[in-house]
């Protein structure tokens, strides 16, 4: 091994020995919320609550309309039966 090779070996050994020390010596800087911009939460909260209101309201209207239609059909059927002068058993 000549002088040049010895020097390379020493430099490599030093790099390997110092690398963990350099890594340990790194200081991490705390960054708050680096990527996404801050969203205003109020529209999301109001939107979520509003959606529940709207969904329940639509459902109630759907059921109430169905109930009104079926009751109308029941009444017209009863009227028809009464007009015919015969009483159904149900």
């Amino acid at each position: 091994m000549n002088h040049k090779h010895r020097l390379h070996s020493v430099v490599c050994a030093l790099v390997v020995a110092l690398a963990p020390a350099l890594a340990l010596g790194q200081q991490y800087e705390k960054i708050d919320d680096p990527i996404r911009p801050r969203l205003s939460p109020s529209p999301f909260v109001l939107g979520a609550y509003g959606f529940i209101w709207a969904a329940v309201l639509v459902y109630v209207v759907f059921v109430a309309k169905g109930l009104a239609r079926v009751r109308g059909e029941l009444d017209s059927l009863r009227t028809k039966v009464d007009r015919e002068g015969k009483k159904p058993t149900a």
Partner: protein
Amino acid sequence: MSAGRPSDFRLVAGAAVAALGFLGIPFLIAATPIEPVMGIVQKIFYFHVPCAYLLFLSTFVCAGASIAYLFKGSEGGDRLALCSAELGVLFGLCVLVTGPLWARVAWGVYWQWDARLTSALLLWLMLVGYLLARRYGGPAAKRLAAGLALFAAVDAPLVYVSVNVWRTIHPNTSVITQSVPEMKLAVRLAALLFLVLWGVLLALRLRLERARAALGELELACEDALEGP
């Protein structure tokens, strides 16, 4: 069903409580402390969690009523299963909309394909499948849908424990027990009010199903009566 019957009174009283509760919930939520990490958006918790409870409740009621229909042939059970499946779809939709709105602010994305979110979506799709089977399933639709309801009931506990079993981005089930007393009280009150609302909607929807059944019976009776002996 004439007006003034005790069942009408109960329905009106329940509807009044539910409406007042819905009006009061924002004040209740406003009175709770602001969560230090997520801030205001955490308030979605007070109606997201009750909706999830009602999704589970609807699924279990649907499955129990389907069992009554499958093994005892109970038509009342079948009607209850159909109505609770509809409510499961309604409150499941509320969960699947309010959750992503919360996630957009808290996580930076609307949706993640993690265990909790995916299993909840599957549960909701099963209930939608139940309704589609009932509507388009032909003569065997009721039995087919009842079987599907049993699968949904198996999935519901998996949705609940998914956050404890798998690694997910969603908070785990201990989030309520670990929260401060004011938050705990608020979420329980909100859950109670949502439960009243669920009961009122179920009673209303059952009326429609009973009226449809009565109409069907009357039509048959009319045909017999008008044709004569």
